[in-house]
């Protein structure tokens, strides 16, 4: 009897502790949920009265802000296409072709990509982009992201392709298909879920990032939303909080939607310790 009572109190204590930690995580986000809908929003927390979409109108009328979102889309889409296509071809080759030392290649690439990270790489990446004359271009941002994300994308996809039986493509080839046909018509449809995961992961990574566009871009009309928002609040003497709050929410929407999509479709899982 006392044991059950003990378990009961443990459960209550655990719930109270969990709720307290939950509040710690929620508090900084509460402002971000209310402020976009409050036409008189300040840095202070207040429940909007009345709820209003006026702040969003201000954002839609602000050319610089909208261009930031468009640039984010261009850069993320460009990066995702390169990562998706490059990783699919490369990891298929690593999984199915007789190239020697395939495992070693995968591990060495992964090693390089975790060693050459944002802060260690910012100087040489800037110099390389400067050297090939691509400073202050969107293509530079796209190429740098594609290169940086590819090793991890290949690692995830190779794992995925290795788990698919070769007999699919083999039977197609027995029926007379060329290896390239077998890849496009047979393997690709089966690999598609893996590609979707990689593409979503790459999109979220590029969409949310700040450092690379911050050091590679100079002119304001090429800046993605991350750099645009930062210049809103760091350079404007008093930040226009209403605009910033609504813009932050708009900018976060794709990430939230993609997260919901992935956890609905695949269940939120880990892929080699990768932040999705």
């Amino acid at each position: 009897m006392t044991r059950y009572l003990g378990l009961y109190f443990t459960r209550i204590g655990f719930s109270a502790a969990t709720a307290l930690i939950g509040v710690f995580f929620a508090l900084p986000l509460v402002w971000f949920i209310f402020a976009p809908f409050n036409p008189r929003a300040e840095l202070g927390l207040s429940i909007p009265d009345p709820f209003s979409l006026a702040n969003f109108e201000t954002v839609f009328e602000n050319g610089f802000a909208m261009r930031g979102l468009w640039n984010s889309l261009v850069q993320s889409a460009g990066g995702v296409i390169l990562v998706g296509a490059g990783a699919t071809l490369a990891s298929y080759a690593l999984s199915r072709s007789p190239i020697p030392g395939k495992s070693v290649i995968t591990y060495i690439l992964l090693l390089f990509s975790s060693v050459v990270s944002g802060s260690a790489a910012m100087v040489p990446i800037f110099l390389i982009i400067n050297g090939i004359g691509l400073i202050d271009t969107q293509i530079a941002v796209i190429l740098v992201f594609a290169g940086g994300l590819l090793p991890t994308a290949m690692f995830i996809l190779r794992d995925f392709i290795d788990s698919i039986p070769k007999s699919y493509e083999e039977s197609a080839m027995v029926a007379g298909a060329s290896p390239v046909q077998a890849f496009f018509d047979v393997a690709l449809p089966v690999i598609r879920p893996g590609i979707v995961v990689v593409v979503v992961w790459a999109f979220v990574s590029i969409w949310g990032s700040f450092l690379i566009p911050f050091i590679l871009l100079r002119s304001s009309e090429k800046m993605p939303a991350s750099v645009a928002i930062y210049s809103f609040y760091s350079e404007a003497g008093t930040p226009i909080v209403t605009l910033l709050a609504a813009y932050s929410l708009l900018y976060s929407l794709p990430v939230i939607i993609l997260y919901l999509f992935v956890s609905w479709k695949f269940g939120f899982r880990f892929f080699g310790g990768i932040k999705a």
Partner: protein
Amino acid sequence: MKSFSLLSRGTGVAFLAPAGLLIGAFVIAPFFWVIFVSFTNRSLLGRTAVDPDFVGLANYFSLFDAATFFTRGEFGSSLILTIEFVLLSAVVGQAALGMLLAWLLQSVPKSLKHLTETVAIGAWILPEVVIAFAWFAFLDYENGTLNMIMEALGFPPGDWLLSFPFWAIVVFNTWRGTAFSMMLFNSAFSSIPPSYFQAADVAGASSWQKFRDIGLPLIRGHVVTDLILITMWSFNVFTPFLLTSGGPSYRTEILPIYTYRIAFRDFDFGKGAAVGVVVMLINLVFALFYLWVMRRRAKGVAA
């Protein structure tokens, strides 16, 4: 029997080429380039921008100069600050809080579990600029949410970013990153057969005893993985820059922010590259250790 391969060697190489080129140009080349630049006095402007001189180890001597090593705003001080930041925010903050949360989540009602997971994951997935701005509002002196709560509880308000900048970025990084450890440990705990815990219940074990004698030993491998990854991420994180820009007076200038200032504010690429090399060497140690652990696990040596 020789295995029948689907792709010829030539097609395989062709398939590898696009990714290989991009990785070569923007991952492998920077690795060697940064080492090369660290031995020069390359700058952004002036003669040394186009025609840098070879200066040998001069940049490294200036980083590890004993006279200035501990001076605030210099490399040594920034390195020590970074180590403290990683230990406090990643190892103590993210890993310990993530572990506690994951353990608590095993036995709380489903709705509370989902709610807590949602806010923690929200802190983790939202774009860094947005998060930084939300924290800016949270910590604001005049109207911030935190001071509102402090006043409601009868405490004096604080100008957190000015008075406790280092603790502000430590708590910030803990808040931002705990979700990863929480999810990793959560899935590790749920993979333990429930019968183990039921047996312990029958024996009258307390929750702490179950954690210490069953939970923790069985997820030891995951703890190692988690610690390596979050240490590496926190060591390289640039996000605190968005909150404090490294200030006030260099008190939050962790190495990534220090590198940025040396290279892109002072335009001293040679010295910035030398910092990059040191950071890469430290990353290399962690990454090699991680790969070693993963390979051991893949071979089934460790749990």
